């Protein structure tokens, strides 16, 4: 895959919210219907002025100005300029709806440094604190678009009951720091985004209502050429799975989905992961605690199955990004199902975390980027791949894993997927085995990334490891030996409960 480093600078800038005469014109000519209406009103007014100038006693110079200047200017030039200006509005703002757009326009003069999605100015909680948010714009502008959308959600919830003042400013500072921390902790992971299939009839009033809700968070709604029919929300990419998960939670809490059935979630990872990405999807499907059934893509001839290639160049996000994208199509958002079994309301958090983290190891195994850190991550991927493949072979579904999924039409791989799920349905041990392999790989990749980050920020000589409450069992070894022992413990099913660093010593605490 081709990758290129990008500096963590301002990405996908949105610019200030539309304001002044230009902003008003852009809003008046925002879409075809409104542009037609605005042009018609302008034409009628100008024609009326012209006719009036002919009928009434008006100086000849004024008649000339109206006939040669006002009439063509207002009926031809203004609509053209308006339509051109409207093209510069951000896609999410264009879906905000007229009243909210006018509300944002009225406040835009006092919020020129507004760093969040323009539609966020229509949220009452944020509107009230616009000045305090603008004061911290510098700390927000470097965030990815997905992170800014998640920050909007965090601020809207945190500021809902606060009046402007020092307490609100402290909350704003804390929210920004939290989202920045999520994003920074994801350093080394490929950027991740999502598509949430809310599946409303795109022409319905409900879909229009959802478009306007999502636009307040900077999320665009679309409807055509996706894997499921109906309305889909395009969750913008961010550095961290946590950011995306929190944004999805906020969208569902804001009422974008009808309750009662889970929402398909397409997880998009930047980078060409290749066909081996199927192992991540298969592991998560097998590890699920529920019975599964298969539903194919609703678009005929679609090549989407468990995984698919992204069709467009992904949006830049700070850090190292690829020019390609791989999509995962196995996840569901359960939080909108009222009687979802305990432990599944946040299933998408786990799916996003596993997908993004193991994708980093897979990218390393595919040689991008190169270096010792990548080699160590690649080793973790090979262990995971061998583990899942051996597990499936043990349960008689090796061929289902060997099948090529990427770029293969769904109908061709459907038998493989059904064999996997049928094997799982009759053998709970298969689910337990998949969880064991997945959990071990996840812990080892996360630990490896944490260790390498510590290494890069200073010397690391020793590893201290053991279980809390058993000081006698805590051992100190050099890094290589210590980490090998920790990895062995993880492979034996023990979980890492905490990692800390003091000087050149890394402490890894394990459960008993």
């Amino acid at each position, binding site marked *: 895959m081709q990758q290129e480093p990008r500096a963590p600078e301002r990405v996908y800038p949105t610019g200030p919210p539309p304001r002044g005469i230009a902003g008003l014109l852009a809003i008046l000519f925002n879409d075809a219907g409104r542009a037609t209406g605005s042009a018609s009103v302008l034409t009628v007014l100008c024609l009326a002025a012209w006719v009036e100038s002919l009928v009434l006693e008006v100086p000849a110079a004024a008649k000339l100005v109206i006939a040669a200047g006002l009439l063509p200017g207002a009926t031809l030039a203004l609509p053209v300029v308006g339509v051109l200006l409207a093209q510069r509005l951000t896609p999410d703002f264009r879906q905000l709806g007229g009243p909210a757009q006018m509300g944002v326009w009225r406040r835009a003069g006092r919020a020129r440094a507004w760093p969040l999605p323009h539609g966020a100015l229509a949220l009452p909680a944020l509107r009230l604190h616009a000045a305090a948010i603008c004061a911290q714009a510098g700390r927000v502008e470097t965030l990815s678009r997905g992170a800014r959308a998640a920050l909007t959600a965090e601020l809207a919830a945190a500021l809902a009951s606060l009046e402007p003042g020092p307490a609100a400013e402290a909350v704003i500072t804390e929210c920004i720091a939290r989202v920045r921390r999520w994003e920074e902790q994801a350093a080394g992971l490929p950027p991740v985004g999502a598509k949430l299939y809310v599946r409303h009839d795109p022409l319905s009033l409900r879909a229009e209502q959802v478009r306007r809700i999502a636009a307040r968070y900077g999320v665009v709604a679309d409807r055509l050429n996706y894997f499921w029919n109906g309305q889909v929300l395009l969750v913008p990419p961010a550095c961290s799975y*946590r950011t995306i998960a929190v944004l999805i939670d906020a969208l569902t809490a804001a009422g974008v989905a009808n309750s009662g059935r889970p929402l398909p979630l397409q997880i998009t990872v930047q980078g060409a992961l290749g066909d081996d990405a199927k192992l991540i999807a298969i592991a998560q499907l097998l590890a699920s605690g529920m019975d599964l059934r298969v539903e194919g893509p609703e678009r005929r001839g679609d090549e989407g199955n468990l995984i698919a290639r992204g069709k467009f160049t992904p949006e830049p996000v700070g850090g190292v990004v690829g020019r390609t994208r791989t999509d995962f199509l196995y996840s569901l958002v359960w939080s909108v199902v009222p009687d979802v079994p305990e432990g599944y309301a946040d299933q998408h958090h*786990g799916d996003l975390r596993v997908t993004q983290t193991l994708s980093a190891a897979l990218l390393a195994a595919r040689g991008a980027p190169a270096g010792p850190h990548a080699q160590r991550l690649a080793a973790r991927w090979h262990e995971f791949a061998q583990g899942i493949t051996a597990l499936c072979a043990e349960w008689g579904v090796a061929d289902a894993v060997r099948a090529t999924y990427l770029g293969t039409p769904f109908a061709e791989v459907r038998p493989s997927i059904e064999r996997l799920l049928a094997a799982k349905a009759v053998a*709970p041990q298969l689910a337990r085995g998949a969880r064991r392999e997945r959990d071990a790989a996840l812990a080892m990749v996360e630990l490896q990334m944490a260790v390498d980050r510590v290494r890069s920020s200073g010397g690391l000589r020793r590893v201290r490891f053991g279980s809390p409450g058993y000081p006698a069992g805590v051992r100190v070894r050099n890094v290589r030996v210590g980490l090998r022992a920790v990895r062995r413990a993880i492979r034996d099913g023990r979980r890492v409960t905490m990692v800390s660093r*003091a000087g050149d010593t890394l402490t890894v605490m394990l459960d008993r």
Partner: protein
Amino acid sequence: MAAKVAPPPERFGVTRTGEPDRLAPPIAVPAEVPEHAPAPVTPERTAVPAGRRHADR
């Protein structure tokens, strides 16, 4: 896609095969602590500060 997880039991007539799939908490990048700090212990859950909706996951 693809494979879709069946809806919950009873209501939709689908049986579960086992316990919910829970992940261990993510391994965070360790923060620097003083060289002679006491041995770390597993922290207990504390109250969520005012104004925060989510735990810092």
